């Protein structure tokens, strides 16, 4: 399988990339790691007239770990995230999640920007970004703007980013307390049957705050606000976990597919969330 014809561009700064996108409109697509787009081009399910490769733009790289804010450039790869000790110290759930994406070769190419911007409900980083209450930086012909991860996803592959904009970075606050990303998949490299991102904090014997988001259980990632709220003020015992799972199940809308029927998705979603909460609490 070989992609259809395209003209190749390799701009060296964001302004030039935006210029190419503006000139060619919906004929043009930005290429990050390419491990979602190139397979679609090979299958001829994506027709791209102008491929704008972002690999040579230094301003899209780099991980900045500040005291109050962590910022990750769009072209940072999953392998970069896993290898970054400072990031893992400040927000260990990033590496825990990245390690569950695909396999080593794919993680060497796949980027955080591509993962969150593509809008594929199977991708893992969007739910994590919602769990973290991250912000996405977008740049377009009108300038820069910021969109919250929780407001970015509209439906499968449809996001708040317009065709002439680039997602340039993600940012979020360092995490304290407990965390877990739990993913059920059929095999290495598969998308999640269901996955759960959990961040929580402890005050004495009870949970002080909790944020929960789910992967591949609707046509967008699902930030289950009520599920997090169900844990707050509790000792995170079996009853609290059961309540959180029930609240999460009310927020998801999985469809039956080759990973199983709807009832099975609900079952697996409950199982991964239960495990994730227990692991996060044990780390809090």
């Amino acid at each position, binding site marked *: *399988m*070989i*992609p*259809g*014809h*395209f*003209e*190749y561009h*390799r701009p060296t700064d964001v302004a030039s990339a935006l210029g190419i996108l503006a000139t060619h409109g919906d004929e043009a697509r930005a*290429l990050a790691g*390419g*491990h979602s787009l*190139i*397979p679609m*081009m*090979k299958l001829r399910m994506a027709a791209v007239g102008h*491929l704008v*490769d972002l*690999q040579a733009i230094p301003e899209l790289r780099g991980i900045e770990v500040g005291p109050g804010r962590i910022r990750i450039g769009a072209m940072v790869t999953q*392998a970069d995230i896993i290898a970054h000790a400072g990031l893992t110290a400040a927000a260990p759930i990033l590496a825990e999640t990245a390690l569950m994406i*695909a*396999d*080593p*070769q*794919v993680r*060497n*190419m796949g980027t955080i920007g591509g993962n969150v911007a593509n809008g594929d409900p199977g991708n893992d980083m969007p739910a994590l970004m919602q769990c973290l209450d991250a912000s996405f930086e977008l740049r377009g012909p009108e300038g820069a703007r910021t969109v919250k991860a929780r407001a970015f996803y509209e439906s499968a592959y449809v996001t708040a980013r317009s065709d002439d904009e680039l997602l340039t970075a993600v940012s979020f606050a360092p995490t304290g307390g407990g965390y877990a990303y739990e993913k059920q998949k059929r095999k*290495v*490299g598969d998308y999640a049957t269901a996955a759960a991102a959990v961040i929580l904090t402890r005050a004495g014997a009870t949970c002080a705050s909790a944020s929960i988001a789910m992967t591949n259980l609707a046509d967008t990632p699902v930030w289950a606000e009520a599920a997090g709220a169900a844990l707050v003020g509790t000792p995170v015992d079996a009853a609290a976990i059961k309540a959180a799972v029930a609240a999460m199940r009310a927020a998801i809308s999985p469809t039956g597919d080759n990973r199983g029927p709807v009832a099975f998705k609900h079952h697996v979603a409950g199982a991964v969330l239960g495990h994730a909460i227990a692991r996060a609490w044990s780390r809090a």
Partner: protein
Amino acid sequence: MSKMHLKMTVNGAEVETLAEPRELLIHVLRERLNLTGPHIGCDTSHCGACTVDMNGKSVKACTVVAAQANGASITTIEGLGTPDALHVLQRMFREHHGLQCGFCTPGMITRAWRLLQENPNPTEEEVRFGMSGNLCRCTGYQNIVKSILAAAAEMNAVKEAAE
């Protein structure tokens, strides 16, 4: 459609070739540069038979378009050893029966070569995790893991002896 002039460093040598930007790196290597060591298995970035090293990282050459690789430094199985002077990984795959049909082997060894640079002293579990992007449908992996661990041990012994 017009071809582009591709310049790459392949197995240490500067090479130039003409290719359409949409050609896959695996096709450029196999069909334009006659490096038929890396194989095309699944052609969908799952099996890892096409694994090569690009700019110091293992990648699946079926999911890189030629234009992306322009300017890159590539290492294939041909760059690791020769029939007369096998790389220690190649020797250990032979000694420990790390292959049966051999189709996945170039990708396995090229990936293992990079893995042992990233982690020169891996545990069995780390080998399995680090090799999880390479599929073998014959061996059941047992002897592949054994071969890689044996290669790591020998490479470390040689390194220690040199120090």
